[in-house]
């Protein structure tokens, strides 16, 4: 089941407190990967990986600032993510309502 393993590896990298923190620090786009990495008790390579995941998700971009590259949070993307999560919440609230109705219905049948 390589598909399960691949997906699991992808998701293992998600939902991480470090990544949330990087997104917050990169709001004002003052630091590059090296400076960002200095904030965390982990390897430079590990932070580089976190930033790559955020880049792929569209949540940060790297941009040139003079001679160096800084990491900037994409606020529009963050807003978009927020709006989509609101829609996803509505989807699940609908599902929970239907689950609740189904449980109530089966209780009636038992009676």
């Amino acid at each position, binding site marked *: 089941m390589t598909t399960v393993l691949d997906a699991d590896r992808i998701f293992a990298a*998600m939902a991480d407190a470090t990544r949330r923190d990087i997104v917050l620090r990169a709001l004002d786009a003052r630091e590059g990967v090296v400076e960002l990495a200095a904030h965390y008790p982990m390897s430079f390579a590990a932070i580089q990986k976190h930033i790559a995941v955020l880049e792929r998700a569209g949540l940060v971009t790297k941009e040139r600032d003079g001679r160096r590259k800084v990491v900037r949070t994409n606020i529009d993307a963050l807003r978009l993510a927020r709006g989509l999560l609101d829609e996803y919440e509505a989807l699940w609230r609908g599902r929970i309502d239907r689950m609740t109705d189904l449980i109530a219905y089966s209780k009636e049948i038992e009676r």
Partner: protein
Amino acid sequence: MTVTAVRKDPAALTMTLTAEFDASPERVWQLWADPRQLERWWGPPTWPATFTAHDLAPGGHVEYHMTGPTGDEAHGFWDVVEADPPRRLVFVDGFAHDDGTPNDEFPRNEGRVTIEPIASGRTRMSIESRFPSIEAMEQVLAMGMEEGLTLAVGQIDAILADTPVHSA
């Protein structure tokens, strides 16, 4: 209130929703384990789901499609990562071709379901969803689910674009 908590993290592209039911964990597990019950809640009334394969065991595969108001079908699948009845289910949810084989052009999202008993015969269920990208979220929502919310927004935009602006 059935839904007791919702936690959304736009920076991590995750949502955790917690709900409580007046039922046992076994009864709540049945909502997932019995495909005929699953069909009655997974899709909204306008996009009902049909489950054509349903092996809820680690490494198992689930296939389903949702049928829209005009008869068009959206196919999906789950790869079951963990299944521990009646407490825990972890699955990867993806898009499929019409023959049920996974469509790898679309990203997958992951669902982690935890079911636990609480006081007085009630049960708490939490579902944690993780998305690999914003695009993945858009695609899941555009699948026609939940009255096609995302599509509806696009239609409104189209109507507005077509409406001539009259000066007062």
